[in-house]
């Protein structure tokens, strides 16, 4: 197991804030919109640098999505900012008609995704957003794993033409990816090469997968760990190549089991190479209030859950 260490922990939303500022410096057409959550989205640095390129929308997410679509007419590259719940479920039809079907170059940037926003509870903990967004034709869906990757992804989507859903979160987590990484949309990142099982992880679950890989190594299991930061378009070649070698799969995500990364992988495999797969995901339920780590443990989204899923799927493979 390749060794990953960290000297600092940060929230991925801060990576977004830093990436937005960098993208704004690089391209004068980058504009930002926010629905009354500037602090939560870490947009202050961009606003300070480019006050005329920031639009405070108020608590009007539907209007924000429509205005973002309109801003692209005239060449602007709008980044919308609010919580993941209000970035997707609340405005699904606006995104569908005015952005996705209309092929507008809008970057939908969503913080506080999943269970790990913690104490606010299920009204704010969306676990269906990846599913909703990946079902839209032409939508790119990205869920980076740490501060550095979120910053790099934010800069990368500014250069990319087309609608993007960028999902990140609130909790402070280890920074373990390269600060100077090149973020290639749609290209999976090999975290650790192994031969016994393929662990495909996204977002906050990537670090948990690394912790799980270390525990599995102690148990004599050589896990391949791949970071799927781009859920759509899925890096099909990387998934198929890994599975051809290992013969079994664990998918890991902070999302409902239905409609997330695991389903994308299962659908790819069933068409090409049917393979035993276990899901580390929320089992079709809503979340609840609690501390992020408590929630990740209770809903079986931590490294112990990944270890258990690996043991289960390897047993299935041997049958």
């Amino acid at each position, binding site marked *: 197991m390749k060794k990953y260490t960290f000297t600092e922990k940060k929230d991925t939303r801060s990576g977004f804030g830093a990436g937005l500022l960098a993208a704004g410096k690089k391209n004068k057409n980058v504009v930002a919109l926010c629905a009354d959550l500037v602090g939560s989205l870490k947009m202050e640095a961009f606003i300070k640098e480019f006050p005329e390129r920031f*639009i405070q*929308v108020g608590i009007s997410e*539907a209007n924000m999505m429509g*205005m973002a679509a*309109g801003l692209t*007419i*005239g*060449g602007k590259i709008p980044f919308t900012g609010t919580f993941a719940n209000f970035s997707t479920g609340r405005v699904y039809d606006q995104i569908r008609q005015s952005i996705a*079907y209309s092929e507008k170059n809008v970057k939908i940037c969503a913080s506080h995704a999943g269970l790990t926003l913690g104490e606010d509870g299920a009204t704010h903990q969306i676990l269906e957003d990846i599913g909703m967004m990946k079902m839209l034709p032409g939508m790119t869906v990205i869920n980076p794993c740490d501060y550095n990757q979120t910053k790099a992804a934010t800069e990368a989507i500014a250069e990319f033409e087309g609608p993007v859903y960028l999902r990140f979160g609130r909790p402070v987590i280890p920074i373990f990816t390269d600060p100077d990484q090149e973020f290639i949309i749609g290209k999976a990142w090999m975290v650790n090469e192994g031969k016994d099982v393929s662990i495909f992880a996204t977002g906050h679950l990537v670090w948990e997968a690394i912790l799980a890989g270390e525990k599995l190594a102690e148990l004599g299991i050589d896990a391949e760990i791949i970071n799927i930061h781009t859920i759509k378009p899925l890096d099909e070649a990387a998934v198929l190549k890994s599975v051809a070698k290992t013969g079994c799969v664990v998918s890991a995500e902070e999302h409902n089991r239905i409609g997330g990364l695991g389903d994308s992988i299962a659908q790819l495999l069933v068409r090409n190479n049917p393979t035993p797969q276990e899901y580390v995901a929320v089992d079709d339920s809503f979340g609840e209030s609690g501390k992020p780590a408590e929630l990740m443990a209770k809903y079986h989204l931590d490294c112990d859950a990944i270890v258990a899923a690996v043991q289960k799927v390897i047993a299935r493979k041997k049958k």
Partner: protein
Amino acid sequence: MKPDIEKLTDIATQVRRDIVRMVHQCQSGHPGGSLGCADYFTALYFHVLKHNPDFNMDGTGEDLFFLSNGHISAAWYSVLARSGYFEIKELSTFRKINSRVQGHPATHDHLPGIRVASGSLGQGLSVAIGAALAKKLNGDDRLVYTLHGDGELQEGQIWEAALFAPHNKVDNLISTIDVNGQQIDGPTDRVLSLGNLHAKWEAFGWDVLETNGNDMEALVATLDLAKSRAFKGKPIMILMHTNMGHGVDFMMGSHKWHGVAPNDEQLAAALAQLTCSTQDY
């Protein structure tokens, strides 16, 4: 430019002929609201807008138009074709398979003149405000126009946009509401009352004008007046009173022709009432 009211009226009659023929040909579509707004579309595309039929999406240096109540697409397609955005004969593909002339306006198939999809109601005002903000950021001093149905005002997103535009002094925006008092299930007063629209929009901070949308002279005068009131700190709202189905006597003033196509006999009766100097597609 002094408007030629007679010529505009003649074009509007041709637009009405196009509408009833298109809807008849595919036996679907929305003739009522389309006929009611034929004069508006004609005034806009043949008198008001500075626009370029060699379409480009950004529309830099041009006035932009957004149709928010996308179901009255037939009227829009007619003026787009007749002002040179695409061939007039393409109107015959309206609502048919493998056509760019979709039931509701779409950018997906690259029909020139369309900048955003509409159909699901209430979204066009927000999109237009975004485009107006882009014009301001780009130092582009042309205007953005929108059209909405009165029933559409029952969508909540409209009122989010209604709050935003005056607060942010989006004064390069001229919106129009087609006040025909009808929606699918009946008169708006019975389905869900809109109340005093003039007072409502004024209270939100808009510069509100009213006009008769089926009197070309009054309509053109109002649109010209609206243009003269742009860039004065407020977005502009025109309450345009129309007859649903205007120009075809048996379709006028009733919600029953919101989304029903005429049969052969009704088509002949309608066309007999609509005579103009130009040619059908």
